């Protein structure tokens, strides 16, 4: 079975490594980490992920700006994105039916199960 390519853009190095470990451990995913948001566009262009997990608050460049960059290039504009953020609470995700400006989001910390479920729903 071919693995699903996931790109995670988040400045939190430990967190991204743990996401990679857990997702790849299922055998279903191949995860590329990008801890520098200013390089997210180039990495996405090269790696061609099938889904991007995107942090919102990062130094140098924030998640929504990364999103705008990605949307400007036709080759990668279609890739589904899930925002991952520590600034909202789980209860708010449920209340707002899980979307920020039309994009799905997950509140950190969420369980690996919730993360995989969200990925499956948005592929």
């Amino acid at each position, binding site marked *: 079975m071919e693995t699903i390519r996931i790109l995670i853009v988040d400045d*939190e190095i430990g967190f991204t*490594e*743990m996401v990679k*470990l*857990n997702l790849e*451990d299922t055998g279903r995913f191949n995860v590329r980490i990008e801890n520098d948001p200013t390089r997210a566009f180039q990495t996405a262009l090269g790696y061609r992920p099938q889904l991007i997990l995107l942090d919102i608050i990062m130094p140098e460049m924030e998640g929504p700006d990364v999103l705008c960059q990605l949307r400007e290039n036709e080759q990668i504009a279609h890739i589904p994105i899930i925002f991952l953020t*520590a*600034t909202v609470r789980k209860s708010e995700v449920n209340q707002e039916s899980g979307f920020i400006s039309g994009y799905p989001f997950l509140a*950190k*910390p969420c369980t690996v199960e919730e993360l995989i479920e969200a990925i499956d729903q948005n592929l």
Partner: protein
Amino acid sequence: MNNELKRTLQVLIVENSDVDRAVLINMLSKAPYGSFQISATDSLLETFELLKQSVVDVILLDLNIKDSNGIDTLQRLHSRHPSIAVVVNTGEYQDDLGLKAVTLGAQDYLIKGMYKSYGLVKALYYAIERKKAEVSLRKALEGLKEMQAQLIRAEKMNVVGGVASGIAHEVKNPLATILYGVEYLSTVLKEGDDKIELTLRSMKDAAHKANSIIKDLLDFASLSDIKKECYPIEKTIEQGLVLTHHQCEKTGIKVVRHYATNLPDIFIDKNRIEQVFVDLILNAIAVMKNGGVLTIHTSRKNFDRSDIHNPSSLVETIRKGDDVLIVDFEDTGKGIEEANIEKIFDPFFTTHRAAGGVGLGLSIARTIMDTHDGIIDLSNNEDKNGARARLIFKVKGDCSGDNTYLNCG
């Protein structure tokens, strides 16, 4: 002529000497202005009795009387009746005694034989006006002190609220990392021994607990974001009970409901108020570890000062006579130490830290009640063990009428 001068003044003469008393009555009857209704006594004991029965505007007080001597006479009178104007009238001439009398609450100090009718009447009228000014100043001072306490409270909340959002982001990221790390280890070490499993479970619980503290902090930060509607209070209590049902069962706590019938809806953010109820129920559970009874009362009445235990629970928006709903949560735990009754609302103050308390629940509860112009008041039950948490909501016109909670403009 000033209205005060037209009125008949109620003067009480406290005087040991019959002669001096006659002199005073004579002077007042020949007064150039004013009219006086005079009563007289020669003892402090009878003075207190007279003050119980009738209103007195001003007391002419001799310091040496039947049952009291010297400045002590004034002190005893003033401590029992601080709002009545007192003019000391004594035979002793001592400058420092006069000043002392004024310091201790008298409005003037007259020396027998050193004044005439005009001076006496003037002293009485001036004393009454000085007293009025003093009373209103004292009232204003109390108001200011109360307002200062409220401001300090609000400022504390603001600081915690402002810090909360910043902390949330910084702490949630490492927490997420820890949780994912633990989850990964749990899958890899599935066949591991009990000790490893226990360790991983403890780590996971600790991370979840830290996360719930952050959640509480964020609740502060978003307290201004409330959505009020007309809603039945009983329904909110029941929702709170559903959420805590499991803990109540586990601890062996019996819930007794005494709901008043036909209560009007109140204007609340039902989620926030439910949060207050849940917090109060969880606090009750925490003090009844070996079981007990949680009694919930609801009632409607006209607010009175005696409805609350702690004066600092009072809020500007609820006044005597206002139509209010009262919700009481009574537990059968060991009660609250009197010294902690006010501190208990401070952020991070908790009496059950060892059991996992963070000390934010009640301060959040108070802030939520503040945003609802409501009162939260804690006290110990008088006749039995345990404590009472009382919530008071103002019944507002908008929600009266029928009892449906969606019908609200």
